[in-house]
């Protein structure tokens, strides 16, 4: 911990300080509207701080601030701004300051995870997302469904946290360090992993793999990958649109970045099976998500399955990233993943923002049928919704198309290189493409309902300016990225290529643990 570390953490510190200030002020002041402005100002301030510290990749204390970190932190701040806009309406039953503060904390958590170069900080970052999320879920609405979703998410999340922690524990046990750089060195064999040569605990060679699976499972819950996805449909259905948007984006982004940091960058030597694990999860996740989504009538539930399926698509990129280094093709798998993450986040937040805009305080939009005839009643809103759905479906010339294109391209680019892994990746790309075709069915069904059905009742659209602004920004960005995908794709590829966990300067030698004695 040094002044440099604090300087690098300024954006997060600003966010957390603003959040704490809001929490404290909320106890005394009764001005729910103002908290939004303060939160918005906090996000803007944090963005300014982040902008000012832009520079070369540095490692300081527990932080690894490289291009991946910047990508994740900027994504977090953009999402933060969108969520502050999206939740611009004071909560009905009070609790607005707590809600806004928790939102900022979750964003700060995502930023911490992006910049973490150390297991402890990463764990704290992930919990800084989870714990405020419990509060958000509870505060969103006060009916039984909302409370049920809160308790479901809470209980399953701590179970997943325990599994993740166990994995981190085994990772620590194998390598003897919580620093990702040290872990990488130990696993790569450039640093002795054991204190005494010759004394090997039983099953020590299994620990790394055990850690891999447990970490994958723990983070798999965050990204809603099968078979750790079960909470998602129920929780999304029960909670508010804004919370569903948050849940479908922020933990997923954090989980993906953490997976990249730990599995791809810090755990070498597991090429033989890490990609197989990711491949199985990818296929399982997208297939299950899409197939189940075909049956849904509740929009939030449908989008929950859609977000599961999209986690599956993103895992394609992770699979390619985990493939042995010699067989990587031209399009970077992790780069494609990061690009897709951004594209997916925009479309999903936009879709939920449309729903939030259309709903009423006491009667949110639930069923697909409630959108019937929207194309005639509110053509612009329907057009924006179509943009999001088409983007999620991967229709060409929208951002989602380029995302899927980059992912499938990365899978197809995996070269044989002497190892007969290419058929697996080609198969993965084919399964992905088939899934995209299946997915189009339920996205287009919504579009069809909006444009080709006579309206049952025109939605009141009492969402106000905030959600309107949110989905407009998302739609414009989705169209813009669709038209000019290169800058963002370049940024994502840079984030993937220029990131590492290697330390530039060697760390201090490990401190002798005082009390250690042999029996």
């Amino acid at each position, binding site marked *: 911990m040094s002044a440099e570390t604090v300087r690098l953490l300024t954006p997060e510190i600003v966010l957390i300080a603003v959040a704490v200030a809001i929490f404290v002020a909320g106890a005394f002041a009764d001005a729910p509207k103002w908290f939004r402005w303060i939160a918005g100002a906090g996000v803007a301030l944090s963005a300014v701080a982040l902008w000012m510290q832009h520079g070369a990749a540095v490692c300081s204390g527990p932080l690894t601030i490289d291009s991946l970190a910047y990508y994740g932190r900027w994504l977090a701040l953009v999402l933060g701004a969108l969520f502050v806009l999206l939740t611009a309406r004071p909560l009905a039953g009070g609790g607005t300051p707590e809600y806004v503060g928790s939102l900022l904390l979750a964003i700060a958590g995502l930023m911490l995870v992006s910049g973490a170069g150390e297991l402890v900080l990463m764990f704290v970052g992930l919990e800084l997302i989870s714990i405020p999320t419990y509060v958000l879920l509870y505060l969103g609405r006060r009916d039984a469904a909302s409370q049920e979703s809160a*308790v*479901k998410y809470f*209980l*399953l999340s701590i*179970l*997943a946290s325990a*599994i993740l922690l166990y994995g981190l524990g085994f990772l620590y046990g194998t390598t003897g360090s919580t620093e990702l750089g040290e872990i990488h060195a130990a696993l790569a064999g450039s640093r002795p992993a054991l204190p005494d040569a010759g004394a090997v605990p039983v099953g020590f060679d*299994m620990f790394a*793999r*055990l850690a*891999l*699976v*447990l970490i*994958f*499972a723990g983070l798999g*819950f965050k990204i809603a990958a*099968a*078979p*750790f996805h*079960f*909470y998602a*449909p*129920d929780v999304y259905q029960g909670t508010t649109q804004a919370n569903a948007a948050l849940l479908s984006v922020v933990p997923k982004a954090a989980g993906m970045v953490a997976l990249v940091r730990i599995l791809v960058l810090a755990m070498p030597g597991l090429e*033989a*099976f890490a990609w*197989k*694990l990711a491949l*199985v999860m990818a296929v399982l996740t997208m297939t*299950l998500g*899409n*197939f*189940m*989504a*075909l*049956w849904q009538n509740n929009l939030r539930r449908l989008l929950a399955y859609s977000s599961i399926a999209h986690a599956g698509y993103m895992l394609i990129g992770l699979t390619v990233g985990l493939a042995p280094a010699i067989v990587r093709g031209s399009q970077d798998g992790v780069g494609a993943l990061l690009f897709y993450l951004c594209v997916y986040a925009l479309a999903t937040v936009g879709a939920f923002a449309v729903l939030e805009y259309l709903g009423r305080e006491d009667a949110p939009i639930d069923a697909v049928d409630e959108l019937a005839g929207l194309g005639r009643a509110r053509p612009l809103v329907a057009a924006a919704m179509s943009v999001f759905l088409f983007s999620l479906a991967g229709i060409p010339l929208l951002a989602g198309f380029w995302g899927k294109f980059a992912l499938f391209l990365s899978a197809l680019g995996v070269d044989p290189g002497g190892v007969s892994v290419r058929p697996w990746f080609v198969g993965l790309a084919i399964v992905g493409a088939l899934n995209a075709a*299946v997915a189009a*069915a339920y996205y287009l069904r919504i579009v069809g309902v909006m444009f080709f059905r006579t309206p049952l009742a025109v939605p009141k659209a009492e969402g106000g300016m905030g959600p309107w602004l949110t989905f407009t920004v998302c739609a414009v960005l989705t169209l813009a990225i669709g038209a000019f995908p290169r800058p963002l794709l370049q940024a994502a590829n840079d984030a993937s290529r220029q990131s590492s966990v290697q330390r530039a300067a060697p760390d201090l030698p490990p401190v002798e643990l005082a009390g250690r004695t042999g029996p």
Partner: protein
Amino acid sequence: MDTIKTLLILIPALPLAATLLTAVLGKRVLRRQSHWPTVLAIGLSCAASLVLVFQVQQGIHKAESEGPSPQVGYEKVVTLWTWAGVDGAYAYSTSEPARGFRIDVTLRADPLTAVMLAMVTLVSLLVAVYSIGYMHDDPGYWRFFSYIPLFVFSMTMLVSVSNFVLLYVFWEAVGLCSYLLIGFWFQKPAAAAAGKKAFLVNRIGDFGFALGLFLLWTTYGTLDFHDVKLAAGGEGTAATVVHHETEIVEDADQPGLVRAGVLGQTMLRDRALYVTGGVATAICLLLMLGACGKSAQFPLHVWLPDAMEGPTPVSALIHAATMVTAGVYMVTRCLPLFLASEVALQVVAAIGGFTALLAALTALTQTDLKRILAYSTISQLGYMFLGLGAVTLLSAAGAVAGMFHLFTHAFFKALLFLGAGSVMHAMGGVIDVRRFGGLRRLMPTTHWTFLFGCLALAGIVPFAGFWSKDLILAAVGEQAYSHALDPQTQRLYYLLYIAGLLTAFLTAFYTFRAFFLTFYGEERIPREAGHHAHESPRSMTVPLAILAVCALVVGAYFELTHGFAHFLEQAPPLAMIAAEQATAEAGAGLGQSAHQALSHWWVAVISSLIAAAGIALAALLYLGHPQRVERLTRTLDAGGLYRLSRGKFFFDEIYDLFVVRPLQAVASLSFLFDRTVIDRLVDGCGLMPKRIGAALRPLQNGMIQFYALAMVLGLLVLLGTLLTM
């Protein structure tokens, strides 16, 4: 920007502008005045075309006065912009770097194009003026006047582009206009069916044409007519035209920097560059298939008679004077290719001669005035192909004659159709010659102008048809008596010559049969005409009169001054033959070429006598007692000949039986297969995800503990497999 470039752009651009203007404003703003943009634009185009002819003429004179030029014929190529380009699309050989595929939008000015442009725009102008009167009550008035300039645009582009791809594009575009105009009265089932038939039959021809283009591309590596100057980088780099205006004369000294076009100067100067043998024959036959479709030659002639369902001005313009001659134009343009294959030329001649005779025989017994004229169009187009087929390396006379016939035919056939339209207009839409007669007093102008057209078509001195038909027969006759050919080929041309003479007789007969039936005999007017059957308005009779004068004078004027032939012989494809001829004559030391030796006086006499005989027979039969015709009909019918001709040789029925029905059977089988097998399979595949989804739904039962258990079980399975791997 020089004059020729401006003219070349203006000529198609004005009708296009008229189309857009009429299409946008016609329905609401212009309404009854919709003809103005069209008439003005085509009029200006026509003026521009005439100026272009003089410009080209001047260019030729200038080139001649400058002494012997290395250029074969006269051409000027103007590249406007590059439409599309693919680098390295074609590898000519492994030693040479790959060539790019480029489509330049390039227009050309040469005598052939100039003649076609002048003819097309002039006839179009007259027809457009005529249509003002003919179409005046039609609810689709503005629609008609937005299609006509579209056609003129496409047709002028077709004859002025300098690239096979663009030729194909506009080839299709005129086909589209034809389709739209045949089906102009689309509420009428017969018109809709005729449009469809024309479209489908043309597709067969166009398919052949497209294959021909593919073969050309793989053979020569370019689809440009003209030579293209390349950038200094040579073939390997993307070829760019150095100047947007390329005058080929300038870069004749730098052969290394020129990519030879298929019909460009480089190839024309050195004919050995043309591929011969089977490939050449295949290319030519495929192109000829395209020409057969567009120009209604056997076996693809069946669409043209049905196309008469369209408005009569359309029949006159598109299906008699201009569009159907596109095939003749294309074959003339590609003569250097056809000269590389003797077989192909013989096929062209044979198809032409056979179609001419067949169509004339069919026309004998038709009763629909427009159908008679349609068959006569097919027959005359056959004549043109016959002329083109009689071209040899030593004599371009056949081609000149064919083009000349195309030129004169445009006038008198447009005249005849417009005359028929005038009759139809007065008779309330009735066109069956059996239902009216003796109209000469009622419609004097129509009568006289129609007579001029008939005389020109029959080939009576000094009408236009006489001169051009005579030239074709002479060219074929020359082939028949040429000693340079082997006996078998000679026999073929002899037969074709006889067929040509026979056709001349038949043409004279059926033309005057129609004429006498319409205008002579007892005056009969059908009920549909009402009581006010009258001569047509001024806007219709003036074009008729102008065309009648043309039918009288164009042939004699151009033949006696040799203006047409001299002008046209400067077109690159024909100039190449002239150059060959000059070389051969210089080598053989002949003072006079063979075709000049034959001054054709006896051909002229014979064909005139034959035509006169035809007219006499028609007069004998149709001006006398009707019983004579009936007796003759019965005699002929005993042999089945009458029925054969009356039934149009049953081509439609034969095609229906052997092509349409088998295809329909296959189609219905495929439909059945598609419905019962493929659709089921597809539906099954589509339902599968849903079924699987349904099977998975019980997993999502809402119980926290079940979810936790499932997560941990999943984790254990993954752990188990990975730890044992």
